[in-house]
């Protein structure tokens, strides 16, 4: 069964039709590359899945149940996690503090509850180990490499049992060497049975790690096929409009 099903989703802002009649489904343990030019509607689409916007038309079903969200926090409650493009990290805090930001572990009773540093360091360390990332929970994020910062942002999504992880341009701002590290992190998520949506401009990344590619152009879905049956040339053509639809 599909984890998430989108049926005839549209979104318009006034007269602007940002997303037009898009349907697709996400399978557990599958990485879907979502591609398209600026303004193609991929961000709007993802923001609807993340609970930032409500669709104007159409419906979403999470594991078969109707999904209606009013605020972004609800997405998290449903097991939908987002890795923001800017990662949303606080440089002045430790890796563990960032992983648990907004979901701190505490010990004690009632109003006398204090932060449980030990448990948070331990849990964060376990997550980094699962991700096979050499990231130290006690270090400040300020001093970290781009790949480690990505690991911190991705570790957040693993605090709860996420079903879907949306990643917005995770490889846009980091060095080539670190890209490989991030692609490995994505594979780790996939191997844990999580459905990953990878929004990216970088063709090589999508073709390396994704199982399926969805191409958007001017609010429409113009392609949705297994990566093995496509090619970078075809996807480029679809993005620019040289190829109408497949």
């Amino acid at each position, binding site marked *: 069964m599909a984890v998430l099903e989108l049926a005839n989703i549209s979104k318009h802002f006034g007269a602007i039709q940002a997303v037009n009649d898009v349907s697709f489904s996400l399978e557990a343990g599958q990485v879907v590359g979502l591609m398209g030019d600026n303004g193609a509607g991929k961000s709007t689409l993802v923001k609807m899945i993340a609970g930032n916007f409500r669709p104007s038309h159409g419906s979403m079903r999470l594991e078969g149940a109707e999904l209606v969200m009013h605020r972004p926090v609800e997405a998290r409650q449903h097991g939908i996690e987002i890795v923001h493009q800017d990662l949303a990290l606080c440089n*002045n805090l430790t890796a563990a503090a960032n992983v648990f930001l907004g979901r701190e572990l505490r010990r004690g009773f009632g109003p006398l509850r204090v*932060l449980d540093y030990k448990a948070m360091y331990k849990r964060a360390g376990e997550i980094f180990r699962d991700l096979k990332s050499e*990231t130290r929970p006690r270090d400040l994020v300020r001093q970290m490499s781009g790949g480690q910062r990505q690991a911190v942002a991705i570790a957040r999504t693993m605090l709860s049992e996420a079903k879907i992880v949306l990643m917005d341009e995770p490889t846009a701002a980091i060095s080539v060497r670190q890209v490989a590290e991030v692609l490995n992190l994505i594979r780790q998520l996939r191997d844990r049975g999580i459905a990953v949506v990878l929004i990216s401009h970088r063709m090589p990344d999508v073709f390396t790690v994704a199982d399926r590619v969805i191409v958007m152009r001017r609010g429409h879905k113009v392609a949705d096929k297994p990566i093995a049956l496509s090619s970078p040339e075809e996807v480029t053509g679809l993005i620019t409009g040289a190829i109408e639809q497949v």
Partner: protein
Amino acid sequence: MAVTLDQSISQKQQSWMAQVLGSQTFWVLIAVILACIFLSFATDSFATTKNLYNITRNVTFVAIIALGMTLVIITGGIDLSVGSVLCLCSMVLAVVMHAGYGIEVGIAAAIGTALVIGAFNGILIAYLDFPPFVVTLGMLSIARSLAMVASNNTVVFQFGPDHDKLLALGGGAWFFGIANPVLYMIVLALLTGFVLRWTRFGRYVFAIGGNEHAATLTGVPVRKIKVAVYMISALSAGIAGIIQTGWLGAVTTNIGAGMELQVIAAAVIGGANLAGGVGTAFGAIIGAALIEVIRNSLGLLGINAFWQGTFIGSAIVLAVLFDRIRNFRLSE
């Protein structure tokens, strides 16, 4: 030997010692201690019980407000209104007690005033996106003017039936000869330090200063925390006002004038970063202590008081210079 993933994850980048040596607060503390040692030998009057009593007590008013200010500065904000809020709260206390009410009513009225002002500042800043500088600059003017209105710009020095209680509260020394204000300062500093390190609230204060947008995205109640922080800042000014009133035994409408700058200086010397995200309760106290030691020593060494501003200003620049040098080395 190959380092395994487990080993490198459990490592810490900086040792405890390196962290202490790298902190601005530590070096300022060393400066305070050296200055005290020097003054003990250079003058006969520094290391006397009476002088130390005076210094420790004088530190407290700036230090207590610097604790609240440090929270504001950590979130990346600023509160310029604290000097005027101190004045208004003192005046509310004085006027209420002068009118014949008890000390409890007076203190409640002063604290209530502080909280209302803090909430006003905070709501404008957090919910209406006013720049903190502008809101609190406005409040600097408003609060002092309200103090003048409340007292008709007179000096209040009679505090009704509980007159003696108030004076004992601020001027007494109930515990081993330590001035009462010093005790309040220590308790408040420990409380602030605890909140910053061990509570979720403290964690959020740092998160907002580090990256407010990130804090919002991860579900931190940024606006509520900001309002709370400005309320705490005003509250600290109110508490300092109550204690100072008890110590001075009189309230004029110019007490606390220009105090905001001393308070900010204390916080910054103690290691708080005006860009947000960095600061400690201990640092605020040490910063206030350095300022007071400088002030005191100039008097004792017979240096013209006009030099005071130069020395305090240099201390601000020097303290931050250490921080800059460290950052340059990090970025290399």
